[in-house]
């Protein structure tokens, strides 16, 4: 068989289809070749998101704004939750944006493989494209709402410092977290449809252990390292630090978050690649 691969004339690629490999690698070159598909799938998700809705993209603003109002009223005004000296509405809104980006990316990417069964069973492409595009398509909503956040920041007369240049890094961290979770859950959901029910619960639960409605300064010092094992702690506090200039106990918490994300992300990639070979058979 070796003689064949050596005598390939012209530049025709030789492809060998073999039984599954127990230790799959990630073929980044192939992923790069399929970048246009990634673009089109993301574009499709964005395009159809607000089809046949009256308010259209306004939904991207309505949701976090209403959450902010409810949070400000109940947590800020009535429960008197501290907000590190930042006006509560902007304190909450600044956390709600990365949170919503994360929450929708997690649920979209986790459901993405089952939702795209039709593609998986009929066409070949690196399956990673599907959850990645689901994560990316949430970005547009984020940027629309971001405009509102910028307005709100100026309304309260807050001048962001140099930290603002770190915003993209925190967006990346939020998406990385979502992708890490999405990879695990989407691959699991191909075999176990229970995952669908887990996602809603998981996201709700996660909101409570993330400092969206409260600052992480209310967490006792000795527990902060454990608390920061939730990567969204680093994301949310990072956002507040970058945009509002104030944040409680950032520093080391961010690095813990980054570490956790990297580990789950690579674990997820590996698990996904390993399961990928059977997706079409069991989905």
């Amino acid at each position, binding site marked *: *068989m070796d003689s*064949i691969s050596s005598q*390939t004339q012209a530049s*025709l*690629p*030789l*492809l*060998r*289809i*073999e*039984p*599954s490999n127990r230790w799959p690698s990630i073929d980044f070159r192939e992923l790069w070749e399929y970048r*246009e*598909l990634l*673009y*089109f*799938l993301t*574009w*499709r998700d964005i*395009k*159809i998101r607000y*089809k*046949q809705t009256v308010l259209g993209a306004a939904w991207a603003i309505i949701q976090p704004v209403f959450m902010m109002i409810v949070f400000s009223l109940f947590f800020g005004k009535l429960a008197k939750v501290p907000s590190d000296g930042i006006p509560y509405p902007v304190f909450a809104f600044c956390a709600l944006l990365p949170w919503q980006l994360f929450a929708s990316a997690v649920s979209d990417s986790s459901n993405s493989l089952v939702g795209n069964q*039709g*593609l*998986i*069973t*009929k*066409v*070949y*492409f690196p399956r990673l494209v599907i959850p990645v595009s689901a994560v990316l398509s949430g970005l547009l909503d984020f940027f629309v709402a971001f405009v509102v956040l910028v307005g709100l920041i100026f309304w309260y007369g807050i001048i962001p410092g140099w930290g603002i240049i770190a915003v993209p890094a925190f967006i990346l961290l939020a998406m990385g977290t979502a992708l890490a979770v999405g990879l695990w859950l989407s691959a699991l959901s*191909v*075999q*176990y*449809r*229970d995952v669908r029910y887990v996602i809603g619960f998981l996201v709700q639960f996660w909101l409570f252990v993330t400092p969206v409605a409260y600052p992480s300064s209310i967490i006792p010092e000795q527990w902060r390292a454990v608390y920061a094992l939730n990567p969204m702690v680093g994301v949310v506090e990072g956002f507040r630090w970058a945009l509002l200039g104030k944040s409680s106990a950032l520093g080391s918490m961010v690095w813990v978050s980054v570490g956790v994300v990297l580990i789950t992300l690579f674990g997820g990639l590996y698990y996904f690649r390993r399961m990928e*070979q*059977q997706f*079409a*058979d*069991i*989905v």
Partner: protein
Amino acid sequence: MADVVIRAEGLSKRYSLGQRERYRLLRDVISEAAARPLARLRNSRSGLNGDGSAHRQSHEWIWALDDVSFEIKQGEISGIIGRNGAGKSTLLKILSRITKPTKGYIELEGRVGSLLEVGTGFHPELSGRENIYLNAAILGMRKLEVARKFDEIVSFAEIEKFIDTPVKRYSSGMYVRLAFAVAAHLETEILVVDEVLAVGDAQFQKKCLSKLRQVGTEGRTILFVSHNMAAVRGICETGFELSEGRIVSSGEINDVIDRYLSQVITRKFMEVETPSFVINDVSINPLGAEVIKTFESVEIKVVLTAKKDVGDPGMYVGILTSDNARIAGIDFKDFAHVPPIRAGERFELGFLIDELPLLGGTYQLEIHVKDLSHHKIERVGNLFQFEVVETSVYGGRKLDAWFGSVGLKATAIQKLPSVSPNLDEVSTTLR
């Protein structure tokens, strides 16, 4: 240029029974895990089958492909035929990298485009234009490539006016045309095509077939699966037949198809019963040929056993189209009288038909058995399928469903206009 571009060696694919197309709930896993020790306990107590029947049940395998090896040369258009469940789809899925083989391998030289379904990934909310780009990207086409061919695709699909309408407003015909048009413009060196021609109206099907044929002339390699034998014959040069996951014949496509069709006729017969008879066998066989062709003579034979004494046995045989329209009927009593038969006796009735006028296609035999002494007519519950092979009845081309079910013994006549003297005058004056 006769290089081998597709080479499969010992290709096998195993599915566990019940695994195929089925997902599991965590609940099932837990209940299975809970049931396992119980089952083991039960087995050890019974002590009969030590390996455990419950254990074996959860590991029952089915080999959808079993040691399949073949080679296809560059530019060859090859057909894969076989009954449902023979492994054709599994083979195509492995070829298009959707699923992995359990054993063996395939080597492919060149990019592979696969068309297992038309309109994969079409989104109803998107316009025709948007879907062209989306679908093309899914099939592996570059954006630039699509942009270059865009007009060609649209005009092939004949949907110029509706290109910016969401495809959910399309008629099913338009939808299929657009989907096929995109796929037909795929420019990979190897093209794998499944039953996609089963859709669309007859005219568009014809267009698709000629497009495929044209693709074949461009030196690209095509693997084509279809149940439409006329289409396979029309497109392919070579091919092979799969049966129960193995290749049972291969070679020149017409030979492979003829062999396949002759098998369809003589496949396993299951005895059926009526109140007075057991039908042991029903067969329709061409005389002196392997397959039934239009205007060939055939013999219809029915082997019966009487369950009780029958005073005046009789039989009627009807020929129906595949959608149960009656084409012809023939009754034994119009030909001959059958003497009484006693209970338990076995006998045979049949007809010799000269020049069966049926065109290519699938037909069915309907059988009534009778005891005329008691005025009893018993319809046999099953219909018996048989296949007539497409032939060039009237000359060159092979006839399809467009020409109906029945062939005519016809001669062409023509009366051409004779040259009129007036016209002659005109032409001379002009000159």
